[in-house]
């Protein structure tokens, strides 16, 4: 029983990281139809920004952790908004060019990060509580899992509130459904594009700092490794569906944990099989809408 609890909560923690990346991917695709392969770079840059701040302050204090989370979000949001404004905006409805530019940006940014911070993993320090465990029904669960889950829940609630109660949120929800009709109501939908990129970048930047604490290190490849699973989550959840991304994040991460433990490290294989089954049975994903 304790193993089940441990795997479940660890899966939820990993799912929280997947969601932080996938939420932005899903919103960006839903509104703009852009598959953003550079999204992992926002995560990595957020993680490095958080680490840079933490090493200049007392890395073991809660104040530093919170400041690094805020900085990671801010850096992720700024870089994502700049990417949309400078590169993506010129390429709407040109899907091949979008893929080429975002893949190129992802590759170039990893090389840039390696040039600045080196190729080796850099270990991070955190408040002591995060490296301790809490006993739940006999399972000793690492405390950092609770931080991941709490942060992802807050981000989910924050995005839902933003979408439901703000004018930008209204524009984004309408734009996901019918972008050209939004412009036909006199709304410059490009502003919403930048806002969505910024929100996605902020979530990825936050995810980057949290991922560095989950894995215990930050490296130039951090974003890329999470991005693959975030894309799978986005497709399984349904492109453009935030709720779908949340559900799929949990399903994928928990399946991964259980398969790794019970079926000899086959977690990644099981996730790919799940993706194949979903695409065969329900090509639009769990909550995706038909084209």
């Amino acid at each position, binding site marked *: 029983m304790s193993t089940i609890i441990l795997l479940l909560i660890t899966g939820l923690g990993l799912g929280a990281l997947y969601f932080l990346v996938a939420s932005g991917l899903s919103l960006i695709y839903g509104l703009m139809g852009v598959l953003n392969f550079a999204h992992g770079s926002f995560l990595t840059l957020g993680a490095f920004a958080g680490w840079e701040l933490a090493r200049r302050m007392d890395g073991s204090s809660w104040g530093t952790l919170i400041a690094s989370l805020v900085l990671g979000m801010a850096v992720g949001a700024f870089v994502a908004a700049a990417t949309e404004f400078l590169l993506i905006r010129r390429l709407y409805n040109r899907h091949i060019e979008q893929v080429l530019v975002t893949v190129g940006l992802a590759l170039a940014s990893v090389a840039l990060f390696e040039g600045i911070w080196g190729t080796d993993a850099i270990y991070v320090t955190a408040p002591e509580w995060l490296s301790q465990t809490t006993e739940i029904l006999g399972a000793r669960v690492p405390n950092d899992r609770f931080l991941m889950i709490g942060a992802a829940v807050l981000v989910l609630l924050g995005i839902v509130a933003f979408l439901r109660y703000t004018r930008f949120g209204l524009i984004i929800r309408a734009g996901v*459904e019918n972008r050209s*009709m939004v412009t036909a109501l006199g709304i410059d939908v490009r502003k919403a594009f930048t806002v969505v990129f910024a929100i996605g970048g902020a979530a990825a930047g936050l995810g980057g700092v949290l991922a560095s604490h989950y894995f215990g290190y930050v490296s130039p490849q951090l974003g890329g490794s999470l991005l693959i699973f975030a894309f799978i989550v986005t497709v399984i959840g349904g492109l453009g569906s935030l709720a779908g991304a949340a559900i799929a994040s949990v399903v994928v991460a928990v399946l991964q944990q259980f398969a790794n433990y019970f079926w000899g490290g086959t977690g990644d294989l099981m996730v790919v099989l799940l993706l194949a089954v979903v695409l065969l049975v329900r090509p639009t994903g769990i909550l995706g809408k038909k084209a």
Partner: protein
Amino acid sequence: MTEIVTESILSVAGLSASIAGQQVVEDVSFEMLPVGVTALLGRNGVGKTSTLRAIMGLIERSGEVTIAGQRVDREPTHRIVQRGVGYVPEDREVFSSLTVAENLRLAERDSSPNRQLIHELFPDLTDRAGQLAGTLSGGQQQMVSLARALVNDNRVLLVDEPTKGLAPLIVMDVAKALERAAQTVPVLLVEQNLQVVRMLAEKAIVLEGGRVVYDGSAEELLSNEALTKELLGVA
């Protein structure tokens, strides 16, 4: 003696448009009256909807589009709308996952939107403010679509087949709403229902093969059975 206002509110000169490389509007030119309803007519597939979409900048186009003396053909759609153009698209295109109230709120551009007018024209929408637009009937969705255009003070309305697929009773409701709207704003109306055209339009423009083949009085056109049959395929 009453002064006759003849200055055009919307004029189109040499307008051509294409969709996915296929020419759908070819060298269309016309002027729209600054008052009342101008009907844009023609058989199915002659380019009426494409003409409206080209004016709105929703499809690739070339040629001149002038609204109240200002060239707008190089402007993006949202800027054209902000100049005071209300657009009611074919097939309504309401946001089905938003409520009726959200659909209307999204459309509000003015600091003091015409909510009272919307309530008077479509009281049913007030009662259904919290209902998802996707769950409304076709007629109710058309009311939302019209209300989105009427909630602002526009210089001109472009209305595309507002009675398409509606029950006869609802058709008359929509026609009355348009008649009321046309008292304050000129309307360019694409419409297949000639009874509605007879009721509303002073001027008619007929397209054939993407070109203008008639530009004149709606009454003269529709009272001439042979000409109506020749140009529109119906009498």
